[in-house]
C-alpha cells in the first residue's frame, strides 16, 4: 500500500529536482568543461585568444614550479597524516580513559580551531611567527633556547615546516572527534578484558585500539589527503608561496598564474592539472588503503 502512495509523476520529479541540480551543475560541471576548452588557448583575458593545442599541457609537464608545488602538497599531506592523525590518536585515547576530568570541555576546546576561518588562522600564526613580536620566539627566549630563534616564515629551508604546523594544529580536533566516534564503537568489554590481562596505556593503544580502529584511521587518512591537495588560504596569507617559490602549492600557483600574471589559458591548464593530480591521489589512496570503509568505520 505504502508503495502506491510514494509514486509521483515524472513532471513532479523534474519540477522539484531540477532547480537544485541545475544550480549545482552551473558551478561544478560547466566550469570543468569550459576549463578544458580554455586550456588549449593562449589567453590573457582580452580579445586575443590564440589556439595553441596541447602546448599548455606540454608546458605544464615541464613546469618545474608546478611539480615543486605538487611535491610541497605531498609533503604537507605527509606531515599532516603523521601530525594530525598521530596526535589525534594519542589525545583521543587519553580522553577515553576513565580518570580524565572535563572531557566535554577538552573536546569542545580542542575542536574549536576547526571552525575558525583558515584566513584567521593564517593571520594569527603569521603574527605568532613574527621575528620580534611573535610568541613563538618569545617562548624560545623564555625557555633560554635563544639559538632556536628564527624568522620562521622567511627561511626557505624551514618554511614548509612552519606553514604545516598551523594546518596540523587547526585540524587535530577534527580527526580527534572522528577517532573518538570510532572508539565508542569498540565495546567496553574489549578494553576491560585487556586491562585485566594487564595491558595499559601505550600497549593498549598499540595492540588493542589501533587494530580495531583500522577502518576509521583509513577514512581519516583519505580525508587528510583530499583536504591537503587543496590547501591554499593558510599559505596565501602566511607566505603566498614564498620566499621565492619555496612554499608554493598547486592552488597557490594556479592563482598566481591566472590572477597575478593573467595567463588565463595556462591557468586553466594548471586547474586541470590540479584536478587530475588530486583525483588520482584520492583514487590511489582508496585503492591502497582498501576501498571505502565508511559504514564499518562509523
Amino acid at each position, binding site marked *: 500500500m505504502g508503495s502506491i*502512495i510514494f*509514486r*509521483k509523476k515524472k513532471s513532479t*520529479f523534474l519540477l522539484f*529536482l531540477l532547480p*537544485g*541540480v541545475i*544550480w*549545482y551543475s*552551473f*558551478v*561544478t560541471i560547466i*566550469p*570543468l568543461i*569550459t576549463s578544458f576548452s*580554455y586550456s588549449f588557448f593562449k589567453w590573457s583575458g582580452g580579445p586575443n585568444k590564440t589556439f595553441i593545442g596541447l602546448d599548455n599541457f606540454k608546458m605544464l609537464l615541464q613546469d618545474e614550479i608546478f611539480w615543486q608545488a605538487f611535491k610541497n602538497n605531498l609533503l604537507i599531506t605527509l606531515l599532516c597524516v603523521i601530525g594530525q592523525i598521530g596526535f589525534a590518536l594519542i589525545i583521543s585515547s587519553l580522553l577515553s580513559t576513565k580518570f*580524565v576530568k*572535563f572531557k566535554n*570541555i*577538552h573536546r*569542545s*576546546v580542542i575542536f*574549536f580551531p*576547526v*571552525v575558525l*576561518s*583558515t*584566513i*584567521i588562522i593564517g*593571520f*594569527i*600564526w603569521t*603574527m*605568532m611567527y613574527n621575528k620580534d613580536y*611573535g*610568541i613563538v620566539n*618569545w617562548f624560545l627566549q623564555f625557555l633560554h633556547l635563544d639559538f632556536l630563534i628564527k624568522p620562521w616564515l622567511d627561511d626557505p629551508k624551514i618554511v614548509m615546516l612552519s606553514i604545516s604546523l598551523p594546518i596540523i*594544529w587547526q585540524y587535530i*580536533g*577534527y580527526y580527534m*572527534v*572522528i577517532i573518538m*566516534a570510532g572508539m565508542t564503537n569498540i565495546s567496553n568489554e574489549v578494553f576491560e578484558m585487556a586491562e585485566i590481562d594487564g595491558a595499559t596505556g601505550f600497549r593498549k593503544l598499540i595492540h588493542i585500539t589501533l587494530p580495531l580502529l583500522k577502518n576509521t584511521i583509513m577514512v581519516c587518512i583519505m580525508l587528510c589527503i583530499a583536504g591537503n591537495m*587543496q590547501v591554499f*588560504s593558510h599559505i*596565501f*596569507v602566511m607566505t603566498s608561496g614564498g620566499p621565492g617559490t619555496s612554499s608554493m602549492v598547486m*592552488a597557490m600557483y*594556479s*592563482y598566481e598564474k*591566472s*590572477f597575478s600574471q593573467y595567463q588565463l589559458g595556462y*591557468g*586553466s591548464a*594548471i*586547474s586541470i592539472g*590540479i*584536478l587530475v593530480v*588530486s583525483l588520482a591521489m*584520492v583514487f590511489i589512496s582508496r585503492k591502497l588503503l582498501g576501498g571505502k570503509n565508511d559504514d564499518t568505520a562509523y
Partner: protein
Amino acid sequence: MMIQHTRRRALLKFTSNTLTNVFLIAYSVFCIFPIIWMILSSFKSSAEFNADIMAMPTSIKFSNYIDAFKTSNMGLYSLNSFFNALVSTVIVLFLAFIIGYFLARFSFTGKKFLTAFFMFGMLIPIHALLVPTFILFKKLNLFDQRFTLIIPYVAFGLPIAVFLFTSYIKGIPKELEEAAIIDGASFPKILFTIIFPVCRPIVLTIGILQFFSKWNEFPFALVLVNSEKYKTIPIGLRNFSGQYATNYPLLMAGLVLAIIPVILIYVIFNKKIIEGMTTGAVKG
C-alpha cells in the same frame, strides 16, 4: 610488604592519572592560546604591545576596535558576509531538503546517478574551478554583483546538505506522510508543513555548518568580487592587514571582530556543530 606494594602501585597510578590530566589541560590551552593572546592584545595600545607582547593589558581599551571600524569598512564587510551567508544557507536548506526527500523516499531512474553526481562534487578540488568560474562569471555578467558569491556558495553547500537530509529523512517513519495523504493533503503541503518541521534538528545542524563555511569562505570571495561594497570579511581582513601590517593590536582587533559571531555560535551549539561536521565528513 604487601601493603607497601599496593601503596606504591596506587601512588604510581595517581601520578600517571595526574600527568594525563595535566597533559590534556596543557594541550587544550595550546589550542585556544593563540586566540586568547589575540583577544588580550587587541585591548593594548601599540606601544604597550611592543614593550611586552605577553603582558596583560593595563586597562581594557576599545580604541583599537573603534579604529578598526573607522579606518576600514569592517561594518560593511560584516554585513556583506552576513548577507551572503544567510541567503545562501536558506537556499541550500530549501534545495537540499527537497532533493534529500526525493532521494530518501522514492526510487526513480537516475537516482544512483544523482547520488554519485553530488558525491563527485565533494571530490572536486575547489581550486580547480576558480579560474573557469571566474571566466564564466565574467562572460555572463555575473562577476562582482550583489548576489555573485551566493551562486558558488549554494552550489558547494549542496552535496553535504543533501546527504545529511537524505539520511535523516530515511529515519522518519513513512506513516507520517501516509496519514496526511489519506487526509487529502497536497504534495508541497506534506513536504513543507509535515516533513520539514520533523527535520528541525538536522535543519539546525546543517544551517549552522553552512553559515560557518560561508562566513569563513575565502577563495571565491577573493576571485569573484572586486568592488569595495561587496567585499566580505576575509577579503577585508586581507586589505586591512596590508595597511596595518605593523600595528598588531589594531590588526588583532579586526580579527577578533571577524570571529566574534563564530565564538558565540560555537559556545551555544558546539555539540551539534562537532557532530554535524564529523558525520558529514565520514559519510562523504
